[in-house]
Structure formats: structure tokens, C-alpha cells
């Protein structure tokens, strides 16, 4: 219902805009929206629960080589006052300087993706599996929509009915494990299996914390931890504009430095979990290799950057961030992880990452949740949280020893402004000499 009415409203608004434009004027219109239910848990009980229906348009207006925009509410029964919005934009654009890199709509393209789902909306369905557990987290479910239309006639639509359950289980000493269950169709048996597995993992934490001295350790990074590291590439990493403007941690790769041949990263939209159209109405290639066996072969380039730096756009979004990252798997089997780690640290999750020295690719952050000290291939004890500070040129370079032969889908659970879509498909990694500083 929400998706259908939003799609209709977008088309009607785009049609009205096309009618009201003067010949020298052009527009690009985006719609972002959701009809979601959020239930927040603490201690196995409901802390807060609510429903949000939110639809917002962003209208970019172009004339005489200049551009400006307005954001305003949309939605099922909202008819935006488009004539007055256009008049406001016309008045403002006269006051602005030309924008030589403004990306004007040129070619009419269309795409449509609509995915239905089925999932519970009642907290009872979540809590039936968590009896006796200190269960905390957020269950979010509902419809997420993204739409695009422009004055050249392009129209793109994406809607998905999805759920994400992002949770932690704690014991009485504050030790915790993390889990995520996400998808479009809720499978009660699968959910119960996952909670049971988390419960078992928490039981493994029931040993005294081992204090680890700062230093360098052989380290296994589980897929969720790898996803956090990959996420840093969306912030001063893989963006062509950032490289051109001296803001990228990958500048050394552009200058010829190479990472490990075990590392290959691509954007892969085959899963259909995120829109493949971008803010300019371009469709991204289904697959785009970015790092191939350690070599930077492509960066993310949007049409604006392409114009400014004489590059070819590959359909990247406005921030040239990763939307559907996929890291290649390797040879390390699940059974080999602990024996190959030998003595060192097993990290399930990381926390609060930031560049500590971006030009040299150095990242700092914390360990979090189920992280263990391992000796001779045997888990000895959970560890207290450690701070790491290490360069990607080391841990994805000569220090990368092995990549697992399986990958896990780490769903995006962020909800700043609205629910995120998609996630990362990433394997685990074994590295040597990972540096811990505090």
C-alpha cells in the first residue's frame, strides 16, 4: 500500500513538473521513504516501540548552467505545492554562480524493482525465542522505497519489504555476543536456530577475561569485523573525487603500491538488495571490480566527478561510497580457522573505527563482543576490549595470510534518517602482526 501509493505520487509529481517547466529548465527528482515499525529491546523486554511513515522528495533544479535544490515532504496523501516550490527555485537560481560540473539529465532510462516480504510486527514473535536471555537490540521491519524521475523522462523505482533484527546477548559479567537476522521472509525455525547458536556462543564466553598486553598478534577477523574495515573505504577511500582531492587513504595504490593478491573487492548488484540506479539516474554495472588481486583497477566515479576530472562515470552515488561490496573468498575452511590462527586473537566484531592517519591508510578502533585469546588452535579465554591501530597497507598487504572459503552477508542495520538497504558480502581473514596499542 505504502509502496504503491508512493510510486504513484512520484510519477504524478514528475508529470506535473514536466508540464510546468520552461524550455530552458530541467529537473531531477528523488524520493526516499519508509513505512517501518521499530521495536527496541533491553533485558529481554520492550524498551520502546513505534511506527514511522516518512516520505521525502529532493528536487534538483537546473537552468543556465546553475543548480539548486529543495527537500520537502511527500507521501500517500500529500500533494506538494509544486508551483510555489518551482517559483522559489527560480528566484534563488538567479542569485547563484554557474556550476560547471552540474550533471544534467540527458537520456531517458527506466527500471523497476519491487520485492515483497512477510515478517512479524508483534514483539511476541521475537521474544518467544529469547526466554532467560539478556537480549537487547532493535527489530525493524516494513517497506523501504527509493524513486527517481527527471525531465529527460527517466523513471526508476525500487521498493522492498524487509526486516532486520540486530541484537546482542549479555551475561551477568557484561560479556556479550552479537547477531543479526535479516531478510524479506521471516523463517521462525531459522530465527530460533540462530538465537540458539548465539546462546551457545555466549556460554563459551563463561571464562575469566584474559588481559592482553599491547603489541602485535596474529589475528583472525570474522566477517562482521572485516565488514567494518571495508566500510572505511566508503569514507575517504574508494571515491575518485577523494583521490583527486587528496582526501583518500588509497592514494598509494593509485601511485602503484599493491595489496595482497588474496584481496579482491567488487561492487555486485546481482542480489538486488539495493537500487542499482544512482542520484543522476544512471544504472550501475551489475558487477564492477575495484581491487583485483591487490591491484586498484577501478574507483567509484559518479557523473559529477567524471565531468570534473575527465573520467568515465561508473554509476557511483553522490558520495562515491560502496553500495553492494563483495570481497572474494579464499581457501581457508571454517575448520582450519583456529588451527591456522594457532596462537593469537579471534575477533568477531570491531567498534568505532576512524582513520588515525589517512594518507598512510592507518585505522584505529576497538575490539567488541565475542573476541578470544587462542593458543595452539584452542580458544583459551575471552579478552577485554583492545584498541588497534593498523594500516590497511599492512593487514591487507603482506600481512594478509588467508581468506576464508565462505562469505557471510552482513546486513546494513543503520537507520540514521531512515532504514538502510543492503549490506556487505565478506569472508573472514587471517592476518599476522595486527597492532594493538591500548
Amino acid at each position, binding site marked *: 500500500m505504502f509502496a504503491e501509493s508512493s510510486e504513484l505520487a512520484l510519477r504524478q509529481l514528475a508529470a506535473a513538473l514536466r508540464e510546468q517547466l520552461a524550455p530552458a529548465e530541467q529537473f531531477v527528482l528523488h524520493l526516499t521513504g519508509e513505512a*517501518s*515499525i*521499530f*521495536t527496541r529491546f*533491553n533485558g529481554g*523486554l*520492550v524498551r520502546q*516501540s*513505534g*511506527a*514511522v*511513515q*516518512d516520505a*521525502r522528495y529532493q528536487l534538483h533544479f537546473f537552468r543556465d548552467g546553475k*543548480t*539548486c*535544490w*529543495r*527537500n520537502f*515532504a511527500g*507521501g*500517500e*496523501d*500529500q500533494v506538494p505545492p509544486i508551483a510555489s516550490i518551482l517559483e522559489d527555485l527560480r528566484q534563488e537560481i538567479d*542569485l*547563484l*554562480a554557474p556550476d560547471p*560540473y552540474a550533471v544534467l539529465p540527458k537520456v531517458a532510462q527506466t527500471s523497476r524493482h519491487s520485492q515483497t516480504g512477510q515478517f512479524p*510486527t508483534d*514483539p*511476541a514473535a521475537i*521474544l518467544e525465542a529469547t526466554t532467560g536471555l*539478556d537480549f*537487547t537490540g532493535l527489530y525493524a521491519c516494513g517497506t523501504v522505497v527509493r524513486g527517481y524521475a527527471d525531465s529527460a523522462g527517466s523513471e526508476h523505482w525500487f521498493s522492498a519489504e524487509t526486516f532486520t533484527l*540486530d541484537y546482542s546477548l*549479555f551475561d551477568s559479567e557484561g560479556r556479550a555476543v*552479537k547477531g543479526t537476522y535479516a531478510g524479506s521472509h521471516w523463517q521462525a525455525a531459522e530465527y530460533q536456530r540462530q538465537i540458539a547458536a548465539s546462546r551457545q556462543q555466549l556460554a563459551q564466553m563463561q571464562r575469566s577475561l584474559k588481559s592482553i598486553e599491547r603489541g602485535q598478534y596474529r589475528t583472525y577477523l570474522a566477517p562482521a569485523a572485516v565488514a567494518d574495515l571495508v566500510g572505511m573505504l566508503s569514507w575517504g577511500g574508494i571515491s575518485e573525487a577523494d583521490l583527486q*582531492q*587528496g*582526501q583518500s587513504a588509497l592514494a598509494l595504490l593509485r*601511485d602503484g603500491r599493491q595489496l595482497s593478491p588474496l584481496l579482491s573487492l567488487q561492487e555486485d548488484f546481482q542480489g538486488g538488495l539495493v537500487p542499482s540506479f544512482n542520484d543522476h539516474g544512471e544504472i550501475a554495472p551489475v558487477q564492477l571490480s575495484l581491487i583485483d588481486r591487490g591491484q586498484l583497477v577501478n574507483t567509484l566515479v559518479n557523473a559529477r566527478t567524471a565531468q570534473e576530472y575527465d573520467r568515465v562515470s561508473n554509476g557511483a552515488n553522490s558520495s562515491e561510497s560502496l553500495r553492494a561490496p563483495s570481497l572474494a573468498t579464499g581457501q581457508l575452511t571454517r575448520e582450519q580457522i583456529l588451527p591456522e590462527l594457532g596462537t593469537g586473537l579471534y575477533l568477531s566484531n570491531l*567498534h*568505532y573505527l*576512524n*582513520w*588515525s*592517519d589517512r*594518507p598512510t591508510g592507518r585505522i*584505529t578502533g*576497538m575490539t*567488541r563482543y565475542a573476541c578470544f585469546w587462542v593458543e595452539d588452535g584452542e580458544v583459551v579465554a575471552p579478552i577485554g*576490549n583492545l*584498541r588497534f591501530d593498523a*594500516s590497511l597497507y599492512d593487514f591487507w598487504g603482506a600481512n594478509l595470510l588467508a581468506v576464508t572459503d565462505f562469505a557471510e552477508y552482513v546486513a546494513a542495520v543503520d*537507520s*540514521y*534518517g531512515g*532504514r538502510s538497504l543492503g549490506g556487505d558480502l565478506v569472508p573472514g581473514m587471517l592476518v599476522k602482526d595486527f597492532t594493538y*596499542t*591500548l
Partner: protein
Amino acid sequence: MQNIIANSPVQPEQLDALLADLPITADWVGLRWVKEVDDLRSMRDGLPQSNGRTINQGIMVEVLVDGQMGYGATNSLSTAGIGKAAQLAYQQAVNAKAYGLHRSQPRPTVVGQYRTAAQVDRQSAGTINELMSEICQQLKVADSIVQTRVMINQRTIESFYVSSNGSHIYQQVSLLVSDFGATAQSGNITQTRSNGGLSSHCFQGGWDYFQTADLWARVERIGRQAVELLTAEECPTTTTTLVLDPDQMLLQIHESIGHPLEIDRILGDERNYAGGSFVRPTDFGHLVYGSPLMNVTFDPTISDEFASYGFDDSGTPATKEYLIKEGKLLRGLGGADSQARSDLPGVACSRSCDWNRAPIDRMANINLEPGNSSLDEIIGSIELGIYMESNRSWSIDDRRHKFQFGCEYAKLIENGRLTKTLRDPNYRDVTPKFWGNLIAVGNADTWRTYGSPYCGKGEPNQMIWVGHGSPVAAFANVEVFGGS
């Protein structure tokens, strides 16, 4: 469909009438309407990057049923749209009441209003763009400057809160956020200098807070310092006395005092996302958080500080309170719900970032109160140390213990004087030890206010604006280090 509250400002009679006509019967109902008008303009290298306005308005209906609160939020502002939100809120409360963590009570009846004290004006798009272009030109003090940038953001947020037991609160805040900076490059060395770190110039007020008398001096200094950093020595790796400028103290206070004192974190609400706290409920009134020089307040009453307000989003009147006095922890950052759940003293800090998010415990203005030392006295008392300005990197663990910060610019302190410029300065420490080593606090002459529009927390996530005022402060025995 009648769009009943599209024309701002909303009149109280409209919300009262809405409240009376909602298609639900509950123990208590609150309506919180929010409208934000947000102008964002930016330039890079003298060319426009963004010029636009967001008009964002919506309404949250909060419903209490048998002790359980549920909410429904919508920006479909018709009678039907708001009625649907109320029904969804009611359903959420009914579904959750068998599993409620805390039995909520109707919120108290409060009537009042608050407006930003300063006269607020908005400049035209043309005027702002001309000024931004001039700033970009002035930042480029040398050919080695490879990028200049400037951003100016003016926001006006109106909210109206009414409840079934007679509350009427109107608030209007006007916020100004700005940032500018320059990046210099020489060979493989790149250095960026900005106006106090990431979007730290945050005020409640109008244009006067951007176009200050010292604007052009700051612009020139930032360009010059970006170039200066290219040939500066790396910050040494050592343990020394660290002096922090207020523009770095803002994040130090935020991460290692503000967040750990949030009572909802202490109660475990945030353990799955932002994290918990090393502070325990039993610590209030007892814990020695830092040295006796440490006096920290929650103060939403400073007229031009970024996160001032008259009432929080649960309707509690806002007052200044000491969180830490002479180093001892007195009070946490917990709104009415958290105070009831924990039986701890709190403050009026139950805040939501928008109409579509429920209030939770947030910082507002968290300030380190001034001490007695002048800047010259502090620097003059240090034989060997490092002075750092302007945050560029931040990270802290989920219980707010182990932190690491990086800054843009530093000076070596030798024999009581600021000497060499240092690049890539970083420091790391553990919260109680660090604050225990607070050895000097600057006087009111060194006190400045900053803020951030980017404080993230909550599930679903909320990004909210916070203010931090601080004098210069000095800390003994801190690990400092440089780049690779």
C-alpha cells in the same frame, strides 16, 4: 484530503482539536509537531557544491496504554494521516504492554515557551555565495593549497508539544553551523587545516555568529597553517603533558564525560549499538571522576550555546545542573523516564532528533567550567609538553574507557613557551586516569563554546545537535604520537 497543518506556524488550537479528535482512547496522549527549515550552502575551490533548502515537518503521536508507551510518526499531515499514526501508536503500545521494560506514567502537565534569544536573520543565497567564494580565495595562500572548502548551514526548528492532560510547549531554536578549511600538498605529504575541526563552529543565533570581526584573520591563519604543516616535524612518540585547546576539548568532553554519564547507557538500552558505560548506578555521589579542578555542568540555559532549550522533548523544564563538582560525580544525563527507572538524579535531557524519533537521553550543552589559570600561566608552567588544536580523528570503546584522538595542529611546549609546529598529533588514554591527571584549567578568558550537529546514538539511530564549552586544559602523563 485536507492538509490541516501545512501552513506554518501551527496554531495551538489546531493541535488541541487534533488531539480531541484522534480515533483512539488511551490513558494519555501526546502530540509533538516539528518543523525544520534548513538552508545548506557549500563551495569547493570557489565553485558551488550545494545550494538548497530542506523543509521537513511531521508529527509524533505518543500513546500510553496500561503503562506502556507506543509511538506513531508521520509526515502525512492530513487528519487521516495523523489518525493513522495514532492508531499505529496505540497498536504498538498494546502489542508491547505484556513485555514492557518499565511501567510509564502520564507525563506531567507543563505550559511554556522558549525562543533563541539572539536576533536571527537569514542572508540571501547570493550574499552567502559571494562570501563563500571570497573565503575560498583567501584560503588559497599558496600554490601548495590544493583544495579550499566552505559550508554554511542555517536551521530553524519549531516544535509544539501538547498532551491530553493539558501540556502546551512551543519552542523555536535557530542554529548556525559553519566550516571552512584548506588542504595543502607537497609530494606525498597532505595536510588539512580547518576552522576548529569538523563543523565545530556551532551556535544558537544568526549570521553574526559567522561573520565575526575576526573571520578574515581566521581564514588567513587556516590557509597559512595548512602550508606550515607540510614542513612541520611529526609529533614525537612520548608520554608528556598535553594541553588541549577548547576546540579539541569539545570532543574530549563529549566522548569521555557526556556519553558515559547517559543514564540510558548505564541502564543498558544502548548496549547493542552505541555501548554501555564504565559508570555504575552506585557511582553517583561517590565516584571520583577526575581531579579536584574538574567541574562539569549540564547547561541548556546559555543563550547562544548550540543546544540550549527551555524544555526537553518529554516536557521537563531545563535547568543548569552540576554533573561533576570538584572531581566528584554527582548526577547523570537522564530524563524523566531514566530517572524513574534508575532512581538516580538526572537532568532535562530527553531529546529526539526529529519528529520521527522517540525521545531518549541525550547530551545538550555539557561544559567544563572555567578555572583560574591564564593561558600564559598554563604554558609557562610546563617545561616540556605538547599543545593540540582541532580534532580530526576520534574513537573510544563501547564502555567509554580507552580513547584515541587525532588533531590537525600542534605546538611543542619547551621551557614554558610554544615553539615548533608539529604535524599529525595524536594522543590516547583511559578516561578515569586522564581526568585524574587534569592539572590546570584555564580561566574564563580561555573559555569558548563549540558544538557538533553529528552526535549519533539510539535505535533507531538519531543524529542530534550538542554544545560544549570549555577553557584550555592541561593533563599530565598522556601518551602522544605522530603519523606513520
